């Protein structure tokens, strides 16, 4: 599985959403992309992000087994007191994670768009090795454009 983006957005008083962080993690639970967009959440070292991504990978698998009512997906939204994590699990077991403020209206849409960008800018890139860290200017630029557009 791969966690694909850990984005944080906060509502900063004006109707502009500020994206705080993006992370991408590969199928085995390894982080392949991570980026912060705004302050508000703690700044962690890349090693700490790797650990968090691995933890999330494990939690996601466990949560699907705890269902009291029939089969269940893994965790889709995880909420704290001031932010939430929205997780998109793709058919290929890659995970995209978006960190937003609690009030963010449509994180699922944003994640879907990130998935599209990932497909276009990363998977179609013949020089990209699957499951390895994403080092693509095109991907970076389009993510910035997406976030900058207030999506």
């Amino acid at each position, binding site marked *: 599985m791969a966690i694909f983006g850990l984005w944080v957005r906060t509502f900063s008083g004006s109707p502009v959403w500020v994206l705080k962080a993006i992370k991408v993690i590969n199928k085995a639970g390894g982080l392949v992309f991570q980026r912060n967009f705004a302050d508000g*959440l*703690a*700044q*962690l070292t890349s090693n*700490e992000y790797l650990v*968090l991504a691995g*933890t*999330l990978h*494990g*939690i996601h698998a*466990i*949560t*699907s*087994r*705890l*269902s*009291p*009512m*029939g*089969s*269940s*997906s*893994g*965790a*889709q*939204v*995880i*909420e*704290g*007191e*001031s*932010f939430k994590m929205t997780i998109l699990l793709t058919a290929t077991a890659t995970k995209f994670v978006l*960190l937003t403020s609690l009030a963010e209206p449509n994180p699922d849409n944003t994640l879907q768009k990130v998935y599209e960008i990932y497909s276009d800018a990363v998977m179609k890139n013949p020089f990209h090795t699957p499951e390895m860290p994403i080092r693509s200017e095109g991907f970076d630029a389009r993510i910035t454009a997406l976030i900058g557009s207030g999506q």
Partner: protein
Amino acid sequence: MTIHSLYIYDRHCICVYYQDWHRTRRPKPAVEGGILPAVSQAVSPSPHLANTPGSVYSGYGSPRNTLSSNTGVVVAVNDMLAQAPPTPLLQAPPSPSPATLTSTGLAFDEEAKLVYGVILSLRNMVKKLSGRDEQFVNYRTSAYKLHVYESVSGYKFVMLSNPEAESLRFILRQIYIGPFLEYVVRNPLVQMDSREYGIDNEYFRASIDRLVRGLSVFP
């Protein structure tokens, strides 16, 4: 909205109480020694219950039956479980019929540990990400939503509901300030924090049951 189950953990990471309402998938009873006595008869490994005719407990499915106490005795710690017949409020449900209840495939003690592991990991993750002492509140999957409330004394109240439910933290807090304080903390017969007994007792269970069934979110 639906409420599925309630777990209470103490500060030693031990499950001290369990109750469920609408569950179509139940965990298997815990293995011997897997959970403390007085957590929940429904999932305890109690051999004498297996010998009891199911018809005696067939009334359990009716919600009102669990509330009709005709003993007036506070069974504070049901460590006499093996000898004493179950009191009306503490009846075990009939063995689940395969048509309506399926097993999660996990023993209860395993499930309780998994739940605790998930909330502990998520709590740490939320603290790490926020960089301050922020609590993890809930998470949602396609089939259920898990809510957490932690008291200052380290008791963790965990509730599973349907995924569309709003935050149920206030209900967990109500359970804490209502039934929990009244029938556990103020009950001298309950050994809290003992690591040897759960906190299950007749009045506590009935009181939580009443509180949960009285909620507008309860169908």
